[in-house]
């Protein structure tokens, strides 16, 4: 587990300093960097697809209602080059997602990074997603 955390920290670091960024669409056409959102929920599905991977999570609100979140990530090929694997996030995992909100859609966002949450509530490992 410690190794995994160390590796994931290195992955996260490499993302922020990578020169491999590109853009498939203009971030500003969909998201607002000034509307950050942090939510904790349960992974429903991770789709490692192109041009953007997607992460779907369910968040249980204080009222008990479930909110379905739809997050855009970088392209699958970009994530794979940066250490993501198909089992990086699996259904049922608890995660905290740091993202920017979509400008015209609720419960949609663009992921900056995802942190897994252990059973005891402590933070597990972190994976970033370059903004494309």
């Amino acid at each position, binding site marked *: 587990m*410690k*190794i995994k955390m*160390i*590796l994931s*920290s*290195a*992955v996260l*670091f*490499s993302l922020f*300093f990578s*020169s*491999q*960024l*590109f*853009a*498939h*669409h*203009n*971030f*500003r*056409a*969909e998201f607002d*960097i000034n509307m950050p959102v942090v939510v904790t929920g349960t992974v429903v599905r991770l*789709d490692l*697809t*192109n*041009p*953007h991977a*997607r992460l779907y999570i369910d968040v249980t609100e204080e009222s008990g209602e479930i909110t379905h979140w*739809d997050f*855009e990530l970088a*392209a*699958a*090929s*970009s994530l*794979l*080059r*940066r*250490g993501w694997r198909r089992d990086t996030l699996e259904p049922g995992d608890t995660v905290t997602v740091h993202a920017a909100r*979509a*400008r*015209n*859609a609720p419960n*949609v966002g663009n992921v900056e990074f995802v942190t897994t949450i252990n059973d005891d509530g402590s933070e597990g490992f972190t994976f970033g997603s370059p*903004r*494309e």
Partner: protein
Amino acid sequence: MKLAKVLSTFFLFILLASASANAQWPYYIAPGTPLLPDGSVDMDAPPPRTPDGKIDFTGTWDVIRYHQGGEQGRPVGEPATPPPGVPPYATFWDQGFGFENGLPYLPWAREERERRMANNGIENPDSFCLPLGHMQFHTHGQPRDIVQGTDRLAIIYEASAGVRQIFMDGRPMPDDNALEWWYGYSVGHWEGDTLVVETTNFRGDGWLDFNGSPTTEQLRTVERFSRPTFGKLEIDILIDDPGAYTEPFSLRVDQSFMPGENLIEWVCENEQSTQYFIN
């Protein structure tokens, strides 16, 4: 804790030193690749040649970015100064970044680019899984493969799964009635160790850069490919489009050989973002 620091440094080094260590598929150095005594690829070795003595461009290539990257990699700060005699460096976002006064737009083309930028680029063909223009392909952050034969050369771009074919069998350029394509029609010939590629028959709606610098059906490009060392590819590109620009201009793209790397499948299958676009 000390062990953790050592391991952290080790993994960080691996990640930063070679993206291939993290690639999806196995790292593999092809037979015949020049190696240094420590086993790494000798990027400064002489370029490989085909059996008929031509420079062999075959390999996987990564664009070299000389500018400082801002949001989504937008060029910020001062442009890098190329060596004497070398045209300004191309950038994915803004092909005019290295020019003192930007690109020489005709008035309509300048206005169209400004309109596209004001619209947050929502009409960018790539956003809808349509092909990128050549200059965006050359400068894209995703790698490209060159596969070279004796009578033609193919460039396979990971981005947008683009494929260009360059004919080197002596055929003429197409006549004026030929169809127009996203990638145009490319014919190449050798001038010494430089492969010179002329391309015409473009559709008129490709974008030169992410900011939306327009092109027209009058676009003609001349690309000069050279490989001075095993590890470096240099491409000088002449952009000649009297339909959008007051005069031709040239750009430079440098790319670096990616040892042990390969393309990852990239099928544009689920662009769900467009439903949320606003301008």
